[in-house]
C-alpha cells in the first residue's frame, strides 16, 4: 500500500480513478454519475442563490433574467439540471438503503459462489434506475410541450 505506484487503493489515481481503474461494475458507474450530478447541483445552487438575488434590483432586472431563462438554450440547461437532480435523488435513496442495510436479506454463511450485498441489491437498483428514467422523460413534457 505504501508503494508509489498509482493504484485505486491509495487514491494516487486521483480523478482518473473515478472513471477507470480496472473492471468497474454498474454500481461503480452510478457512483460516477452520482458524483458528477452532485457537483453539478452544488455549483448550480451557489449560482442560483446569487442569480435569484437579482430580484432586489427591481422588476426590470428580474423580468429580464426570467426572459433569458425562457430562451431555448436555458430551457435545455434547466432540463439537464432537472434530470441530474432526479438521478441524484433516486440513486441517493438507493445509497441510503444500502448504507443503512435495508433489503439486504439475512446474514448467511459465505459459501461459494459468494453473493455480495451489491449483487443482492441489483434488481432493486434496476427498478430504481428505470423509475428515474421514467420521471426524467415525463419531466420533459411540461417543458417542451407546454
Amino acid at each position, binding site marked *: 500500500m505504501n508503494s508509489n505506484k498509482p493504484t485505486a487503493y491509495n487514491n494516487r489515481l*486521483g480523478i482518473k480513478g473515478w472513471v477507470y481503474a480496472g473492471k468497474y461494475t454498474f454500481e461503480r458507474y452510478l457512483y460516477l454519475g452520482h458524483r458528477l450530478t452532485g457537483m453539478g447541483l*452544488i455549483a448550480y445552487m451557489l449560482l442560483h*442563490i446569487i442569480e435569484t*438575488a437579482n430580484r432586489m434590483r427591481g422588476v426590470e432586472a428580474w423580468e429580464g433574467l426570467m426572459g433569458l431563462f425562457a430562451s431555448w438554450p436555458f430551457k435545455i440547461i434547466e432540463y439537464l439540471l432537472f434530470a441530474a*437532480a432526479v438521478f441524484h*435523488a433516486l440513486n441517493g435513496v438507493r445509497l441510503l438503503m444500502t448504507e443503512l442495510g435495508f433489503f439486504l436479506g439475512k446474514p448467511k454463511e459465505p459459501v461459494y459462489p459468494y453473493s455480495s450485498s451489491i449483487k443482492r441489491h441489483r434488481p432493486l437498483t434496476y427498478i430504481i434506475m428505470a423509475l428515474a428514467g421514467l420521471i426524467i422523460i415525463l419531466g420533459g413534457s411540461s417543458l417542451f410541450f407546454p
Partner: protein
Amino acid sequence: MRETRLWSWHLLVIPIIIVLLGAHFAVMHYAPVFYGVSVEEARNFETMIERGKSVAQLVLYVLLLAAALYHGLYGLRGIIRELPMSPALGKIVDTSIIGLGLFIFAFGTYVTWWTFSFKIGG
C-alpha cells in the same frame, strides 16, 4: 466522533431536501401540471413576491437553503479531501468551504427576508 456526526447530518437532511426540492420543482418546473399556470407566470415578479410574503415560504426557503447547502458542500468537501493533499492544505479546504457556506447562507437568508418584507406598491 466529529466526522461521524458531520456525515450523519449529511444524510439526515436528505428527507428535508427531497420534500422541499420536490415542491420547488413542482412550483417552478411543473407549474403547468400542478398549478395550471405557465412557467413564465409562475416566475414573474409579482407571483414571486406574493409567494415570498408568506411566513411558510420564508421558513421553507431558509430550511431548503440550509439543508441543501450543508448536504452539497459537505459532499464537495469529501470529494476534494479524498484527493492526495497535505494536512495543511486539507485545513485550508475545510475553512474555505465553511466560509463559503456561511456567506451564501447569510446572503440567501437576507434575500428571502427582503422578499418577505417587500412593500407592494411602495
